[in-house]
């Protein structure tokens, strides 16, 4: 696939699946299911698979909503890659809004409950907490969110890790 400011693929990564779907509400779950099927043989624990699916669904929703403005004719492109050490899911939109920038701060639930902040704003926070690494790259035409899970379980890999 043509690179447009994407991170280096890495020499030993192989493409497990590449597909695109229209930007329509609800398609984030289809993407999560496709990714689940693509990585089934990699041996993720049930808990880490659930985390990956949540991160994929959230990143896809962001891409469809903020990147593509929920225009069905504008697809979200998904690549699933794996090496011996990690798996990577890259979700690319057409970049219709400024590059999403993860807020380094944890959303303040107390402030949300007091009405001082909007109840929304959990998407990037959830993604960041569900996967081992998240990279955001792009240019004026595309944004790509890359979600990485280490296959040799790291700090978030334990079944009881939070």
């Amino acid at each position: 696939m043509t690179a447009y400011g994407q991170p280096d693929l890495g020499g030993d990564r192989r493409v497990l699946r590449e597909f695109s779907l229209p930007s329509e509400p609800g398609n984030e779950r289809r993407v999560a299911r496709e990714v689940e099927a693509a990585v089934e043989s990699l041996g993720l624990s049930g808990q880490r698979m659930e985390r990956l699916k949540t991160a994929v669904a959230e990143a896809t929703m962001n891409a469809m909503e903020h990147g593509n403005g929920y225009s069905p004719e504008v697809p979200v492109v998904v690549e699933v890659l794996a090496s011996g050490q990690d798996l990577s899911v890259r979700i690319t939109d057409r970049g219709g809004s400024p590059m999403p920038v993860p807020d380094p701060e944890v959303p303040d639930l107390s402030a949300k409950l007091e009405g001082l902040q909007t109840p929304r704003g959990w998407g990037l926070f959830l993604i960041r907490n569900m996967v081992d690494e998240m990279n955001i790259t792009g240019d004026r035409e595309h944004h790509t969110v890359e979600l990485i899970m280490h296959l040799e379980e790291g700090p978030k890999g334990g079944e009881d890790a939070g």
Partner: protein
Amino acid sequence: MPAKYLEAEVRREAGVAVIELRGEIDGFAEEALAAAYEEAEAGNPETVLLDFEGVDYINSTGIALIVGLLAKARASKKRLVACNLSDHYVEIFNITRLSDFMGVYPNRESALEEAVVTDGNA
């Protein structure tokens, strides 16, 4: 697989308003969730229990809807509690800190038991 829109049904058990949830809690769930909460509050219970047994998907918009219900409950001095979340969503309630503000119980029986004890002491 088509989206499973949220269905919500209100029951009353041991003085607690139980909202039984089935389907997906996402942006499409707003109306059903708001209507069920309004019905639950109508009986002026001290505790409203969200039973997630039939829920297989909650996204960030769904989390925001639950935050909204929690804010409403706190404003009217009611307790909002949850039960039957899967392990994955218990984790999400923990990392979002929802579980710091609302009791999370493994099943309906334990939630009702605790509610009866707490309401009895209120």
